[in-house]
């Protein structure tokens, strides 16, 4: 080790310097990050200013008026609000058992080799574009419902108000079912991450007390993750409320309030999609802006609740954000 090179290069020995670059870097990044809060304010601002004429003209009656008459210039969003909520609730009723089953299966029951493929396939479900769902719904789902689902349903439950009238195809039922298929992957992905965040000790404690595997899931795992699971479901609700294309293509687009699943309905998103570029008068357009405002505020509120619930389980982690 005697031949080690020892010469030193001349170089400044000063310790004194100011580092402005770090501050600039931080400011630039902060600027970009502030874009997000700014964005939400811009969206709100745009919708609110656009909706002002309608807000002034109709006031709160907009929410419960059922008339939507561009000729008489009377607008009320009640049918769309009803249709949005009804189709979303129907979608949740179908999707929640499916999605929770997927999540429970993947975290608790699946053999190791099946886990990846099933998770991948369910993830693919989220990758299918909405308009493709709509196409599939028109040409496959509706004929299927007409031939194999509606007749037996009518036979058993035809006396209830939910199944009155003739099934022409485009309907609350078709819209709700397609929405259900579409939100399954979101609910499943977030639920799965919530269940994965449940400590193994919870499960083991139940098993050690002699619980069967299902009992361990029901009595230990699900209660532990309850807030997060509810969050996942609400997140799915948020998706369903704002989903546009597939619903527009399947729900029938009729300004009408009816409890029968077989009748056409309308949603807020579908109304904007269908009518926005045709809205010729200022008031018509403004009414659609107001519909957009209601939809935006509703989905933001629903998503915010969902996030709070999910964050409570998986503190600060971006649970599910990759899937979304």
């Amino acid at each position, binding site marked *: 080790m005697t031949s080690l090179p020892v010469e030193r290069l001349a170089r400044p020995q000063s310790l004194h310097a100011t580092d402005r670059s770090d501050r600039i870097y*931080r400011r*630039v*990044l*902060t600027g*970009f*990050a502030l874009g*997000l*809060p700014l*964005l*939400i304010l*811009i*969206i709100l601002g*745009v919708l609110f200013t656009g909706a002002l004429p309608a807000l002034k003209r109709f006031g709160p009656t907009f929410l419960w008026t059922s008339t939507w008459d561009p000729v008489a210039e009377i607008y009320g969003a009640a049918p769309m609000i009803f249709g949005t909520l009804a189709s979303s609730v129907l979608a949740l009723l179908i999707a929640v058992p*499916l*999605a929770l*089953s*997927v999540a*429970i*299966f993947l975290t608790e*029951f699946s053999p190791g080799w099946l886990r990846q493929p099933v998770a991948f396939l369910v993830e*693919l*479900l989220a*990758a*299918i*574009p*909405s*308009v*493709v769902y*709509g*196409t*599939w719904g*028109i*040409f496959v789902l509706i004929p299927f419902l007409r031939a194999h689902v509606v007749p037996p349903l009518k036979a058993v439950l035809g006396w209830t108000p939910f199944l009155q009238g003739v099934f022409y195809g485009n309907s609350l039922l078709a819209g709700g079912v397609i929405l259900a298929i579409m939100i399954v992957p979101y609910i499943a992905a977030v639920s799965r991450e919530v269940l994965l965040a449940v400590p193994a000790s919870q499960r083991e404690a139940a098993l050690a007390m002699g619980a*069967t*595997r*299902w*009992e361990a899931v*029901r009595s230990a795992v699900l209660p532990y993750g309850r807030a997060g699971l509810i969050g996942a479901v609400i997140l799915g609700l948020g998706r369903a*409320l*704002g989903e*546009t*294309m597939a619903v527009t*293509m399947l729900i029938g687009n009729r300004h009408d309030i009816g409890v029968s699943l077989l009748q056409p309905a309308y949603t807020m*998103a579908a109304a904007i*999609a269908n009518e*926005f*570029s045709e809205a010729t008068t200022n008031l018509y357009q403004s009414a659609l*802006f107001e519909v*957009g405002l209601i*939809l*935006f505020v509703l*989905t*933001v509120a629903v*998503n*915010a609740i969902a*996030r709070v619930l999910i964050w409570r389980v998986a503190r600060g982690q*971006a649970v599910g*954000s*990759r899937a*979304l």
Partner: protein
Amino acid sequence: MSGRVLRRHLASRAMTAVVVVLSFTAVLALLLILGNLVLKGASSIDWAFFTKSPVPAGQSGGGVANAIVGTGIIVGLAALIGVPIGVAAGLYLAEYGSGRLGFVVRFIADVLNGTPSIVVGIVAWTFIVRPTHGYSALAGSVALAILMIPMLARTTEEMVRLVPHSLREAALALGYARWRTSLEIVARTALGGIVTGCLAGIARIAGETAPLLFTALGNLNFSVAITQPMQSLSLQIYVYATGPFDEWHRLAWASALVLMGLVLIISITARWVTRQRYGRIR
């Protein structure tokens, strides 16, 4: 085994069976959709489908070349706008996001992730279509970029946080300034993950239709001018699927298959990039 224990085991078995059956129903739905797409779409796909523009309604033949090119342009432009903003916001969250502002930004990003895309279409319409008095591809790209940003911010943050803290310390101890540590060491190490996030974001917006309805609008002719209306695959599918002609329905299925294929290729590339990167590092 006593009756009670037996009953508990039977109940456990039964519930397990229910869970398994419901899970496979969900998977079945996917397989059905993909199967239908291939069955009904593949037969209509030929060379002309990719190289020709649509012919007038009622005639047969024609293709979706304009829509494929249009999708590429609209999505590419959206990525050009959205990726820098989203990634920078994500870097902020990972580097400086532990405080109150970080919490707010993170929360808003998550909330915006679930915003209806149609609402974003209205915003782009207000800022671009209305002042310029004309629908344009650019307006569509802006709408799609807005949809990308919150998603990219969160995935970028997540990927950057995966980089071990020790690397950051090593760079700082060498006399790297914080910004150089952040960009040249940390972000560079997480690059594979960031690229994956960007590709996933692109895959998602590539299939978006609603925000394009009154921004890019659609165009039956071949057009590459971003200040003019432009066709996209998704808009084309919407028009064809809801139209009255059998020929259109045939083209709708074929276009849907192409769009789905495009989205799948991007998604799978994204996974492949991740595997490459982390397969090598860890």
